[in-house]
C-alpha cells in the first residue's frame, strides 16, 4: 500500500496535493433511524478482512510519513453513512460490496423494528489525509 502512495506522490506536481480517504479500522455499525429522527444501534458489520485491510491502510500512510516522501498538511476523521429502507437490499450490498455480513441478532432486530418511515443506517468512520510531496517544503 505504501507503494501506491509513492506512485501517487510521483504523479502530483511538486506543489500538488494527495488526498487519501479510507475507512478507519473501527467496526461499521447498523442502526435504525425512526421517523422522529432518533436512532438505535442494533448491530455491527462482521468481516474477515476489513479491520486488517483498514489497519494496513493506516499503516501505509504512517509509513509514507516516516519514510518522508510526503508530509501531512491536514488530517481528520468523519462519519460516512448509508441509508436504506430495505433490509434485504442492505444485506445484499454488504455481502457483495464488502464481503461482510450482519449477525442474526442484528437481523432479527431490524426485521422486528423496521416500520414504514424508518430507515436503516450503516455508518463507518473514514480517515482523510491531505498529503504533500516532501519537496514542496524546499
Amino acid at each position, binding site marked *: *500500500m505504501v507503494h*501506491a*502512495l509513492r*506512485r*501517487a*506522490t*510521483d*504523479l*502530483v*506536481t*511538486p506543489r*500538488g*496535493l*494527495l*488526498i*487519501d*480517504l*479510507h*475507512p478507519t479500522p473501527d467496526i461499521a455499525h447498523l442502526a435504525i433511524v425512526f421517523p422522529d429522527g432518533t436512532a438505535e444501534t442494533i448491530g455491527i458489520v462482521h468481516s474477515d478482512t476489513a479491520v486488517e485491510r483498514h489497519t*494496513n*491502510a493506516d499503516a*501505509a*500512510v504512517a509509513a509514507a510519513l516516516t519514510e518522508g516522501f510526503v508530509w501531512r*498538511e*491536514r488530517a*481528520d476523521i*468523519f*462519519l*460516512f*453513512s*448509508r*441509508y*436504506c*429502507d*430495505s433490509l434485504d*437490499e*442492505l444485506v445484499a*450490498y454488504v455481502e457483495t460490496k464488502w464481503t461482510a455480513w450482519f449477525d442474526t441478532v442484528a437481523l432479527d432486530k431490524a426485521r422486528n423494528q423496521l416500520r414504514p418511515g424508518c430507515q436503516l443506517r450503516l455508518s463507518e468512520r*473514514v480517515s*482523510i489525509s*491531505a498529503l504533500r510531496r516532501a519537496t514542496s517544503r524546499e
Partner: protein
Amino acid sequence: MAIVHDPEQAELAAIHAVLPSFAGKRVLEVGCGDGRLTRHYSAEAAAVTAIDPDAKAIDDARVALSDLRVSLDATGFDQYIAPPASYDVVILSWSL
C-alpha cells in the same frame, strides 16, 4: 429505495476542508467506483481522470457522469500509466 450514500455530505465537507476549490485543477481519482464522489467536483476541475479496476462500476460511471467531461478508465492503479507530475490533485478514493 436504493441505498443512499452520505446524504449529510460529510465526505464532501471533509474534502473541501483540505481543498476548498478544484477550480483549474487537473485531478486523478483512483478508485472512483461508479463516480459517486467524482460528480461533486468534476464540473469545477480543469480536467479529471477517474480510474477503477471494476469495469462494471466504470460503465455505471460513464452513465452517471455523461454530462461531465471526465476521462474514465477501467484499470487498476498498478496498471495506470501517466507521466510524473501530471496532476495537481490525486485522490486515493477508498482505494488503499
